[in-house]
Structure formats: structure tokens, C-alpha cells
């Protein structure tokens, strides 16, 4: 069965959707993400949709679901990289993705997530080299 890979990066989960999603794939992603949040105790989920050319109401609902479910599990969700044409279409369709944080790109999305959960896990007082990779 097809699945979209989920990467763990520190306290975050990272998903890059590179293919056109059909419904089953989107539902699998929703399930997998929520179980990953639970299993890893992730504090944030970043979903990159820069390669996605079509977001219809079903896909929009999945994104909303992921955000609400993650929030209940104490994780924030940021959707990044939405194509302008997709944004225009979504709003006309009537989907405003309420409750889903968005950012322009992965970098800004990560920043937003860090802000949201107030990362204080590593002492960032100075640019000390990250000697131990202890998360």
C-alpha cells in the first residue's frame, strides 16, 4: 500500500507531499501522522505541499483534521509552500483552512513551529557548536 514518508527531526515531524494525493493516500497520511505524534511525542508537524497542484475540499479537510488531531495531542501543525493558484482556488472553493498554521516555505514554517512551542530544549545562549546530538 502506498504511503507518504514521515521524517522525524528533533521535536518535529516532517512530511513532504510529492505526489498527487488520492483519498486513500491522504487518509493513510492522517492516520500515520497522528500515530507518529503519539509514538514520538512530537511537538510540531510540518507539511510541505509545494509540489501539490490540487487541493480540493477532501484534501483540505484532511489538512484541517491533522491540525485538530495534532493539537489535541499537544502538537502544532504548519502547512508550508502552498502554490498561489492553490490558495486562490481554495478560498473560492470556500475552504479557509481554519486552525491550520501556514508559512511560505519550510524554513519559515520551522521558525513558526519553534515559536509556537517555545523551544527551549537546547541552550541557545550562544553559537556553541552542537557537540552532542542529544535530543
Amino acid at each position, binding site marked *: 500500500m502506498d504511503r507518504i514518508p514521515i521524517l522525524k527531526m528533533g521535536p518535529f515531524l516532517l512530511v513532504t507531499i510529492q505526489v498527487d494525493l*488520492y483519498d486513500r493516500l491522504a487518509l493513510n497520511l492522517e492516520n500515520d501522522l497522528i500515530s507518529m505524534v503519539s509514538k514520538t511525542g512530537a511537538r510540531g508537524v510540518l507539511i510541505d505541499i509545494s509540489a501539490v497542484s490540487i487541493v*480540493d475540499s*477532501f484534501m483540505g*479537510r484532511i489538512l484541517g483534521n491533522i491540525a485538530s488531531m495534532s493539537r489535541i495531542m499537544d502538537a502544532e501543525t504548519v502547512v508550508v509552500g502552498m502554490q498561489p493558484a492553490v490558495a486562490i*482556488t481554495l478560498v473560492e472553493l*470556500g475552504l479557509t483552512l481554519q486552525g491550520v498554521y501556514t508559512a511560505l516555505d519550510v524554513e519559515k514554517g520551522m521558525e513558526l513551529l519553534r515559536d509556537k512551542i517555545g523551544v527551549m530544549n537546547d541552550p541557545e545562549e550562544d553559537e556553541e557548536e552542537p557537540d552532542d546530538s542529544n535530543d
Partner: protein
Amino acid sequence: MILKKTRRSLMIVMTKDTMQIVREQDVVPFRNRVRELSTKIGMSLVNQTKLITAASELVRNMLKYANGGKVMLETVSKNAQSGIRLIFMDQGPGITNVQQAMQDGFSTGKSLGLGLPGAKRLVNEFDINSIPGEGTTVTIIHWKHGR
């Protein structure tokens, strides 16, 4: 019950093609076919996205409520403007109250109820014709320049 948003003038059908939609997996190839056709007539990316999103909503309805159906894909031309016409035909249970089904937020399934009204907002012309017990036909047209 018929809801109309059409202009009257001579329309010429330039190409014609049919696709059967019976499984979820048919949706992606179908969307790709619509993209191909709209690219061919030089439709802008935003208009393509609107058309394909609307088509995606309608094809999902077909799968969900009627176990699939078929779509006719046409390149049409009217008043020297080209466009894409898609006709979604199913033999499902039909819609008893089309007016209600066209309202935002109404759904007999568990969806957001944006499919039909949303699709209508996204395309230039939208026509729905449903006979309870016989099936539903939805026709949409999106013009190259989106108007």
C-alpha cells in the same frame, strides 16, 4: 430541478473523449487528462487549478454517491474563445433536492458540503440535472481566460 448559468451562442465541439471513473485510483489520471487538455488550449495555471479542483469535487461525488460513472471531456469553442467542457454522468440515486445540495455546508454524507457549491463558484458555467432514481448529470465549462 435545473440550475443554470449558461450563455447562449453557437458552441463548437473540437475534441471529445470519455473516461470511466469507477475507482478512487481513476481520479488522478482523470485530473491529469483535464490538465493536459487545458494546457493544450493555453489556459493559465490559476484557471487550470480552478477547473481541475472543481472536476475533482464532482468526480468524488460521483464515486461517493453513485459508485462512479463516466466523464466526457471536450474542448469547445464559442465566440472565438476556447474552453473545456466536462460532463459528469452517473446512474446513482440522484439528488432529491438540488437547491439544497447547492447550498454551502449541506451534505448527506459526512463531508464539508462544499463540493457542489464550491465547484460552481470555481468554473464559468455550471449546470446540474438530476432525476431521483435515475442519476445525475453535471456539466461544467471553463473558458481559457476564465470568463
